[in-house]
Structures are given as C-alpha cells and as structure tokens.
C-alpha cells in the first residue's frame, strides 16, 4: 500500500456543526422508524402503493442508496485496482461510505417488505433461479468484502490482503450493480423493462451517482474537520464525473432508441418520452436537463469549470438527476399498464388499460429518508471514532484548499 505516508485521524470537532449533522441524521432515522411501526400496525394499504404500482418511493430510496454504495467504492478501487496514488488516501473513506449507503438502502428495502420479520427466511432459503436471491447474496458479500477491504487498509497486520481484497471488492461491486439492474432487465412481462442493457446502465449510473455523492460528502467532511483537500484531485474528479455522465447519457439514449425501434416497446417509450405523462417532465427536465446537461455545462464550460462551487453544484445536480432517473425507471415503468389484449380497448373496474396513478404518502417518504438518516449517522460516527479521514491531502504541486 502506497499511502503509508498519509496520516489519518479521527474527526476532533465536537461543536454544533458535527453534532448538528449527527442529530439531523438521527432525526431522519426516527422518522423512518415511526413510519415503519405505523405501516406494521396498520398494513401497507396506507401507502400510495397498490396492485399496479407495487414498488413505490421507499424502493426508489433503497435502490438509490444501493446503487450509490456500489459507485462510491469506485474511489477506493481507482487507488487499489488502477493503482492511482492520488486516490489511495481516500480508500478508507470510500469503504465507509459504501458500507453506510448499502446498509441504509437495505434497511429501507427490508422495512418495506410485507413481512420484514421474515428477513431470516430470505437469509436461509435461496431460490437460485431468482435474481433477487442472488442480490441478497451479493449484498451480504459486498458488506463482508468491503469490511475486510477497509480493515486491510487500517491494520498493518493484514496489509497483504489490501490488493487481493480490493480487486475482489471491485469485481464484486460490478456484479452487484449488474444484479440490481437485472432485477428490472429480467422482467419479461413488463414493456418498460425486459432488456439486458439495464445491467450496464445501472453500473454507469452507479459510477456517476457514487462519484457525485463522494465529492459532496468528502467536501463537507474535509471542510467541516478543517482539513486540506487537493485541488488536483478535485480537478480529476471533475473530468471523471463528466465522463461518467456522458456514458450514462449514451447508454440511456441507446436504451430508448432501441426500445422505440421495437414495436412492442414503442408505446411505452412514447408514454415516457413524448410528454403524454408526468413522467416525461421528470425525465426530460429532471434527469436530462437539470440532472445531466446543466451539470455537464458546469463541469466543462471554461467560465465555470475551475470553480469548486461549480463542481459541488454539478455533483448535487447529478445526485438529484440520478434519483429522478431511478424514479422514472421504477415508478414510470409500473404506471404503464400490462398489455393483456393487444389491439383491443380494455375496460374493467380495476384500472385495466389505463395509466396507473401513484401518489406517495408521507409514510413512504419518512421510511425512505430514514435510510438516508442511517447512512448519515453511520458516516458521522465512523469518522469520529475511527481513522477514516486523512489529515491532509495537500500536494505541493497545486494550490490547495485550506
């Protein structure tokens, strides 16, 4: 490991800044728990979900955090797998954030199950034909591998594991995100899905979302702890983020153009793209314009690209855009009705042939932000009690941020 010279230390600050963020995180966890117990007490019918929209806002939060977890680990992998020394000091933090995001996402996913008390069954009974079962194995394996990876970075006694475990974690995270995307890609019955491209698309979403989240969180942690960030590293992240976003847009374009070309999917594509639904507005304004084009301008245009605020603004917009992208994929795909009788006008008393409506309730929002709260609390406690943050990332070559 080449980051021997880097000194790490716990966050020393104990003022309102640190405890304010920690308390905010705990408050979000509290909201999530209240929502969970309310849903357990009354049943899931108090949510906006129904027989048509079976996965709602909590699932969007859960998948958002799970995809982010995988992407955030990229920062560590760039240092370990691709041997980029500038990124190696951030490996520990990358591991902490990845574990925190995954646990936050899984918490939402599990607590929104019809029977969350049967989690033990999911852990002990596997149907290996199910991509969902494979995902359970992948999530557990990810936690174990990244835990070992972080340990290898922090404990000199097992430093020999740093490289092999780092490689294993990198490949595991690629498979994990491919598995998450395949949850949708394997859905043959739905017009919106049934495509192999969901696996690479989700991997690329994780690259962009994970990096954007890492930029934001690491900036807050470093400045909050009054530590020095490397300008050179921020510049590298800027171009990397732009590259990832370009790749997401490319795969998204391929996905939609291919689907438009296939007659069986074209009606759904018109529904999502043509402005016939509210999802079109979310897609074009939220994901494409605000979540992709504006950040790309902030990252690449010469007027803004040198400013740190532009990078932070772009990262925040990418995070928002990725959330909206997942919302459109998950909710928009279910809102389009099943085609049971092609070329016929279908009627029934239970919403056949009509675009399904979904309005998330406050309980779903509370459960979702509860997962974000868990992530936040884990990060804040992690950097306080263990040596995750480098004392300084300053390099002599660049004028660094104090």
């Amino acid at each position, binding site marked *: 490991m080449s980051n021997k010279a880097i000194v790490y230390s716990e966050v020393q600050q104990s003022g309102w800044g640190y405890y304010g963020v920690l308390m905010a995180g705990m408050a979000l966890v509290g909201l999530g728990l209240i929502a969970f117990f309310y849903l357990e007490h009354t049943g899931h019918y108090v949510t906006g979900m129904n027989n048509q929209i*079976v996965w709602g806002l909590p699932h969007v939060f859960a998948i958002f955090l799970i995809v982010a977890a995988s992407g955030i680990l990229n920062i560590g992998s760039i240092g370990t797998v691709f041997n980029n020394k500038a990124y190696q000091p951030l490996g520990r933090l990358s591991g902490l954030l990845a574990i925190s995001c995954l646990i936050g996402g899984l918490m939402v996913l599990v607590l929104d199950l*019809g*029977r969350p008390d049967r989690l033990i069954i999911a852990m002990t009974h596997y149907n290996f034909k199910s991509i*969902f079962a494979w995902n359970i194995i992948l999530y557990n394996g990810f936690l174990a591998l990244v835990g070992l990876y972080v340990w290898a970075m922090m404990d000199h006694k097992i430093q020999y594991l740093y490289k092999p475990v780092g490689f294993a974690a990198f490949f595991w995270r690629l498979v994990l995100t491919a598995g998450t995307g395949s949850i949708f890609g394997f*859905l043959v019955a739905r017009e919106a899905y049934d495509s192999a491209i969901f696996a690479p698309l989700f991997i690329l979403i994780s690259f962009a979302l994970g990096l954007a989240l890492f930029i934001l969180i690491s900036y807050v942690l470093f400045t909050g702890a009054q530590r020095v960030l490397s300008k050179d590293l921020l510049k590298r992240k800027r171009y990397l983020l732009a590259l990832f976003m370009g790749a997401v847009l490319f795969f998204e374009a391929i996905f939609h153009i291919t689907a438009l070309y296939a007659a069986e999917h074209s009606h759904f594509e018109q529904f999502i793209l043509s402005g016939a639904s509210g999802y079109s507005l979310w897609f074009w304004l939220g994901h494409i314009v605000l979540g992709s084009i504006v950040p790309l301008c902030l990252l690449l245009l010469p007027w803004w690209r040198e400013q740190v605020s532009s990078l932070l603004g772009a990262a925040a917009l990418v995070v928002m855009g990725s959330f909206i992208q997942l919302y459109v994929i998950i909710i928009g795909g279910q809102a389009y009705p*099943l085609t049971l009788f092609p070329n016929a006008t279908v009627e029934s008393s239970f919403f056949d042939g009509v675009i399904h409506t979904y309005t998330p309730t406050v309980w779903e929002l509370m459960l979702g932000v509860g997962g974000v709260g868990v992530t936040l609390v884990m990060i804040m406690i992690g950097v306080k009690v263990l040596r995750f943050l480098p004392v300084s990332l300053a390099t002599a070559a660049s004028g660094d941020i104090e």
Partner: protein
Amino acid sequence: MKLGLVVDLDVCVGCHACAVSCKQWNTSGMSGALTDYNPYGEDPSGVWFNRVRSYEVGDYPQNKTINFPMSCMHCEQADCVDVCPTGASYKRVEDGIVLIDQDKCMGCNYCSWACPYGARELDRSTGTMKKCTLCLDRIYDERLEEVDRQPSCVITCPAHARHFGDFDDPDSNVSQLVRERGGYQLMPELGYSPTNRYLPPRVTRLIPTEDVSKKSLISSVKEWVNKMVER
C-alpha cells in the same frame, strides 16, 4: 396430472359471480383472509383471486364485448416461481397447481412484477402475496360429494362458462372442449405455457336492428297517402 380451467368466452356474460364466489370461499380457506380495504368507504378495494376483464373487438356495428375472467394460469414455466427469492412460490409436481407458501412469503412483490397476467396481489394486511389456489382445499376434500369437488368459481358460474379438469387426460372434459372448440392460451408467445385455456367466441351473424320485414299493402298505401298529404 395437470389441473386447470377452461373458460368459454362465448357464454361468459361478465356477471362476476365467479369472482364473488371465489372471494367468499377463499377468504375463509387456506389462503384467507382475502382482506378488504376501506370496504364501506368511497373507494373500496381488496384482494381478489379472480377478476373479470372486458374488452371490445371489432368496430360498430360489428363490435362485441368480450368478458374475460382471469386468475392464475398455473403456468408450466411459471416466471413467478422462478423469480421468488425464498422459494415461497412453487409449482406442485403432482397436479401442476402453482401455490404460495404463506409461511415463507416475505411480501417482496417481485412475483407480481413478473406475472404477465396480473394474477398476484399483495394482501396489505397479512403482508404476503395471494393468488388462486384452484380451490385446493375443496377439490381434494373427500367429505364433499364428487360433483362438488371443483373450484368454487366453476360450481357457481350460472352460464356454465367455466370448466375444471385434468389437461393430461385426453378424454377429460377440458381436453375435449379445447380440442373441439380451439381452446387457446393467453399470450403463449411469452413461453410460460399457461395451463388455463379460453374457448373463443363463436362467429355470429349480425342481428339487424332495423325493421326490414316486407310491408303489407295497407301500410304501403298509408305511407303513400301520408307523403302526399305532407306535400
């Protein structure tokens, strides 16, 4: 044995008796209760194993409404079974009925995404998935008369549009009906090979809606006189 249903679309009048009877029987059966949400409110809903869809074919005046009762098709290659992470969804080897182990289901809803027929529903009260059991607790109940060992929907249907039997037996009533009437599977192109079959509506002649019978001499004279008077 491959047990399943045949539904005759030619005689189904869409009365929903099958759906109501199914709900009544199964709400106290092995998968019960089939919970109702807000049953006395403005927007009641609930869990149903069997729902009657309707669609129009043809253009006016050659159009016709087809009532299409749908429940679990008990597919031979059931995707809901393949996607279930815990194996709670399973297909019985002995009779081909697709069931959900209510003690293993954790209510993740993934099977309802995978089912192309919309046959699976989350019971938001029990937190588990529910679906048609082909009235398993009825068809094997030897305390009942043999004629009553049929799914509740089949016994109830006033138009005798529903039939139950073994598709593996070429001489069974369902096999004969499918053979004689061209019984078909819904969306066979997906490859799930649903067991349930539908008998297509027979081609019927258009019934004239205007009076085209030959006029009598008196009515022709009256018509001529009226025309003259109007001038």
